[in-house]
C-alpha cells in the first residue's frame, strides 16, 4: 500500500533556517528520505546544492550523520563507509545513503558509481536530478533535457538526457527506482523499501529547481507533478529486474488518460523560452516513444 500524506511520520531531521533556496525541491524530498530511514543513516554528499543545504562549518542543518566528499567520489566514499562499518562491526547501526545531483552522478561520478554497482556494494544511492549544475550557476549536465538553455547551452541543449536509471539497471543491481521530489509519499515509500534491501539500491529523483529552471518558487511541486503528467518524468521501480509503474504514472497508464502535452510543461519555465515548434515536437515524439515503452514493459512484466 502506498503511504498517504497523513501517514507520513511527523519527524524532522532537516532543520529550518538552512541555506537552500526558497522553494528548493531537495528540501521537500530530504525530509522524507531521512524520515524513511528514521535518521539511522550516514550520508555521503559531494560538492553540490546539497552541500550548501547541509550548512557551513561549524553548524549543520541536518540532524543525521553526514560526510562531505569530493565531487567524483560519492559512490566510492559510500563503498568505503560501508566497508568500514562492516569492518568495525557497526553495519547494522545505519543505512549508508549516497546522495548526489545529476552532474555528480551521471557525469563526473558515473565511474565510481558504476564500479560500486558492479560490486553490488551495500548502500542506497539517491540521485537528485535538477537537470543541470545548479550549484555552480546552471551549466549543462549530461542529464539536462533537450531544449533547455543553460549557461553553457545558450541556444538550448541539443541532446536528450542520458537515461541514468536504465544505465544503473544494466548493472543488475537489486533495486532501481524513479521518483520525483513533488511526490513526497512516493519518495518515502521507495526509500523505505530500498532500506530493507541488501546490495546497491539506486533511486533517481526528479527535483525541480526554481532558480535554474526559471519559475516562481511557489510552483516547485506543481511543475514536478506536471512533468509526471506529461510523461517526461515517469515514476517506476525495478525490483530484482521486474519493472512496474508506480503512483501517478501507474494511474496515468491504467486510466489511459491523455498525457499533458510536453509543450504545456515547457511553457512554464524560462529555460525553454524560445524553443522552436519543431524542437518541441521532437521532444514530444521522444517522450511518446519512451512512455509507450514503459507502459508496455509494465504490462508485460507485471504478468
Amino acid at each position: 500500500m502506498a503511504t498517504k500524506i497523513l501517514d507520513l511520520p511527523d519527524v524532522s531531521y532537516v532543520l529550518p533556517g538552512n541555506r537552500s533556496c526558497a522553494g528548493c525541491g531537495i528540501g521537500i524530498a530530504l525530509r522524507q528520505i531521512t524520515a524513511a530511514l528514521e535518521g539511522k543513516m550516514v550520508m555521503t554528499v559531494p560538492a553540490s546544492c546539497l552541500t550548501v543545504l547541509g550548512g557551513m562549518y561549524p553548524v549543520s542543518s541536518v540532524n543525521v550523520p553526514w560526510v562531505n566528499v569530493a565531487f567524483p567520489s560519492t559512490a566510492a566514499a559510500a563503498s568505503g563507509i560501508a566497508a568500514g562499518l562492516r569492518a568495525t562491526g557497526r553495519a547494522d547501526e545505519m543505512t549508508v545513503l549516497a546522495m548526489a545531483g545529476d552532474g555528480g552522478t551521471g557525469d563526473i561520478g558515473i565511474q565510481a558509481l558504476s564500479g560500486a554497482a558492479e560490486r553490488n556494494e551495500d548502500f542506497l544511492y539517491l540521485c537528485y536530478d535538477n537537470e543541470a549544475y545548479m550549484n555552480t550557476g546552471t551549466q549543462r549536465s549530461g542529464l539536462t533535457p533537450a531544449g533547455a538553455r543553460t549557461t553553457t547551452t545558450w541556444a538550448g541543449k541539443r541532446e536528450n538526457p542520458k537515461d541514468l536509471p536504465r544505465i544503473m539497471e544494466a548493472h543488475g543491481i537489486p533495486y532501481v527506482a524513479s521518483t520525483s521530489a513533488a511526490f513526497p509519499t512516493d519518495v518515502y515509500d521507495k526509500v523505505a523499501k530500498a532500506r530493507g534491501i541488501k546490495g546497491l539500491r539506486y533511486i533517481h529523483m526528479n527535483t525541480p529547481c526554481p532558480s535554474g529552471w526559471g519559475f516562481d518558487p511557489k510552483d516547485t511541486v506543481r511543475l514536478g507533478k506536471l512533468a509526471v503528467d506529461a510523461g517526461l518524468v515517469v515514476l517506476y521501480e525495478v525490483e530484482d529486474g521486474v519493472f512496474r509503474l508506480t503512483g501517478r504514472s501507474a494511474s496515468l497508464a491504467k486510466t489511459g488518460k491523455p498525457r499533458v502535452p510536453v509543450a504545456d510543461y515547457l511553457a512554464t519555465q524560462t529555460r525553454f523560452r524560445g524553443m522552436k515548434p519543431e524542437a518541441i515536437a521532437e521532444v514530444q515524439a521522444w517522450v511518446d516513444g519512451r512512455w509507450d515503452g514503459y507502459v508496455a514493459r509494465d504490462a508485460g512484466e507485471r504478468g
Partner: protein
Amino acid sequence: MHEIRWHGRGGQGAVTSAKILADAAFRSGFAGVTSQPSFGAERRGAPITASTRLADEPIRILSQVTAPDIIVVLDDSLLAVANATAGMKPGGMVVVNTTRGAAELGLRDDLKVVTSDVTGAAQAVDLIVGGQPMVSTAILGAFARATGLITMESVEAAIRHAFSGSAADKNVDAAKIAFECTRA
C-alpha cells in the same frame, strides 16, 4: 577614491548592479573602476555584499570595502539584518531601496540617507524574474541621482551593453523611474 559597498540578497542582482556601475562609471570618466562580489555560496534570498571602487587613477586595492563612503542597499530589511552601515565613513551616503522615508530608517545621524522605491520601479515596468522584481539595474538610477558620480546616459549605455532587446528597454525604463523617485 570612492568606496562603495553593496548590500543585497542572493537573486536580487547586487553583483550585476556592481558590475554595471563599474561600466557606467568608466563611461562617466573614471579611469579606475573595480567591482567585485564577496565570494561564497550564497543562495537566493541570503544576504550578500559586493564592493565597487571608483577613482581617477587605476585601482590597486582588491580587498573588500570595509570603510565605505557610500553603501547601496537593495532591500531595506538588510539595514538591520546585515548591519549594512558598519564601518561607514562619517558623513557617508546610504542609497536604499525602500518604501519608507529616510527618517524612518533610524540610521546614524551623520549619514546622508537617500531613498527610492526601486522595487516599485521594477514592478512598474514588469521587470520580474522568477516571481521576484529585479532591482539590480533600477537602483543605478537612484545611485546616479543620489551621488551625481555617474550620468544617466552612462547608466543607460552600460545597461544596454549588459542586456539586449526588450530586456534592455525594461531595465533602462526601471532605472529612469527609480531616478525620478529618489528622495533625500
